[in-house]
């Protein structure tokens, strides 16, 4: 039985990460068959919390027409300093105000304790995979879920260095955190692929090891190949074939979970992005039970 609560059930099919460049294009094409496969949009609370003016009006427009997913960037679940509970209270109000059923965050950290002060670094840094880190992160996820009174989903992050102090592999770490925090999984297919190349493991074996019943959401994106054995998670190019194949394999294993296309850099016109949105929808339809 799925862990997915009824609250997340209006998040279905394919979504698109809402970038400012895309807003007027989606508004202009709204109702057209050409963008019918956009079923929901995803926003980062760090971009939209308490905003006014034109952006607030745009957000209202989307809230009236699309289910929204909140995908956070700065909660710093693996961070050193205490969780920013004031920020989480803001997120909670935001989720309620806009009737947003799902909040996901990265299994990473974005703050430090340099010179004794917590500071935001605004990026996703890799948590070392140790027993202590599992307990630390899981405790913070539980704290988050307590404050929000709902489960969150955690996303497998991409990274570029392996911590020499890690005592387990990434899959073991993710599974341990999911188990101990009792939270959902936000499976990023591209991140899984990027890490499999950067750290030379078998992405298919990894995929088969994932507790599928915890998946509520996923991401698809392109990356930049800096070297044969080094991929950078830029979200700035088209999705490559091995990542498409992994998505199909994941749907086959776990069913067609809701999937969002992320494009953060080098953003093409909406009709071009729709090719990828439509392709995700096609693959989902193939595996719909």
């Amino acid at each position, binding site marked *: 039985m799925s862990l997915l609560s009824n609250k997340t059930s209006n998040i279905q099919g394919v979504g698109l990460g809402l970038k400012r460049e895309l807003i007027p294009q989606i508004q202009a094409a709204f109702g057209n068959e050409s963008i019918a496969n956009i079923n929901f949009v995803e926003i980062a609370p760090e971009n939209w919390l308490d905003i006014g003016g034109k952006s607030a009006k745009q957000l209202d427009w989307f809230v009236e027409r699309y289910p929204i997913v909140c995908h956070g960037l700065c909660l710093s679940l693996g961070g050193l300093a205490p969780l920013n509970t004031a920020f989480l209270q803001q997120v909670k109000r935001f989720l309620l105000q806009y009737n947003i059923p799902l909040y996901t965050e990265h299994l990473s950290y974005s703050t*430090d304790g340099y010179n004794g002060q917590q500071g935001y670094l605004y990026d996703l840094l890799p*948590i070392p995979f140790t027993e202590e880190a599992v307990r630390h992160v899981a405790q913070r996820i539980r704290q988050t879920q307590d404050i929000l009174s709902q489960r969150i989903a955690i996303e497998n992050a991409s990274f570029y260095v392996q911590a020499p102090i890690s005592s387990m592999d990434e899959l073991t770490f993710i599974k341990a955190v999911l188990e101990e925090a009792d939270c959902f999984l936000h499976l990023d297919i591209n991140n899984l692929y990027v890490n499999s190349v950067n750290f030379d493991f078998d992405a298919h074996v990894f995929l088969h090891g994932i507790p599928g019943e915890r998946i509520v959401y996923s991401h698809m994106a392109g990356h930049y190949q800096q070297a044969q054995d080094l991929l950078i998670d830029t979200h700035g190019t088209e999705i490559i074939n091995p990542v498409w194949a992994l998505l199909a394999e994941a749907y086959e294993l776990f069913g067609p979970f809701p999937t969002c296309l992320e494009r953060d850099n080098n953003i093409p016109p909406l009709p071009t992005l729709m090719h990828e949105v439509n392709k995700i929808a096609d693959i989902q339809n193939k595996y719909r039970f």
Partner: protein
Amino acid sequence: MTKNIPNFQQYQQAFTAYIRDPIGQPRPKNVSAKGMNIYKEIVFNNLFESVSACFPVARKVMGKRAWLSLIRKYFRVHSASTPIFRKIPEEFLTYLTNLEKSSSDTLPVYLTSLCHYEWIELLVSTMADSSPETVINNQIINVAGDLLEYQPAFNPTMQLLNYPYAVQKISPRYKPKEKVATQLLVFRNTEYIVKFIELNPITYRLIELLQDKGMTSKRALTQITNEIGNLPLEKVIQFGLEILNELKNQGVVLGVYNKPL
């Protein structure tokens, strides 16, 4: 650095310390240089872009290298306290303001004023809306009320600005050495466009006085007449009314607080 924290957190501290200061801090032990190079670049570049996007004039006036080294230093020493992306420039401005207080660095004397002027546009354009628009401070606005007899209600996005330099004129060709007291007003209109207006000292003083609770325009203008000393009251009131009408046409004054005071 404290040793009383778990092993993985000591590693995280070494990791982030190196990202902030790759020259002064050692690379974490047994971690690949190639991987750490990626982190030190992407984390700094992201921050650099987030800050710089708000300050195009300051960046140009300082020149590429000086700006880069300023942001480098900022990233090295400043602990940013907000997770909200649009507040990143404000963090930088806070840092600049403190820097100005603590040392007479080699930075241009007008830099903090200029950066504040550039940042305020972002603040006003994204400032939370008051709702509904006809109510401010829980009081109903009368859009047709007498501008002299009552207290004018200002657009809630309006900010009154007072700089020691002519910030709005600064460019690579105009880098002021002399102070020029500069008074401005900035607000967001109903089309969500941010507008700046240059103010003369009397207009600035009038708006400043009208911020006080319960102050009518007539009383404010009477006070200004006393402050100036050598102008007849009728002249000042006539001038004041022209200003208020003009501000109303522009959408800075929305009306008056309804109740006679």
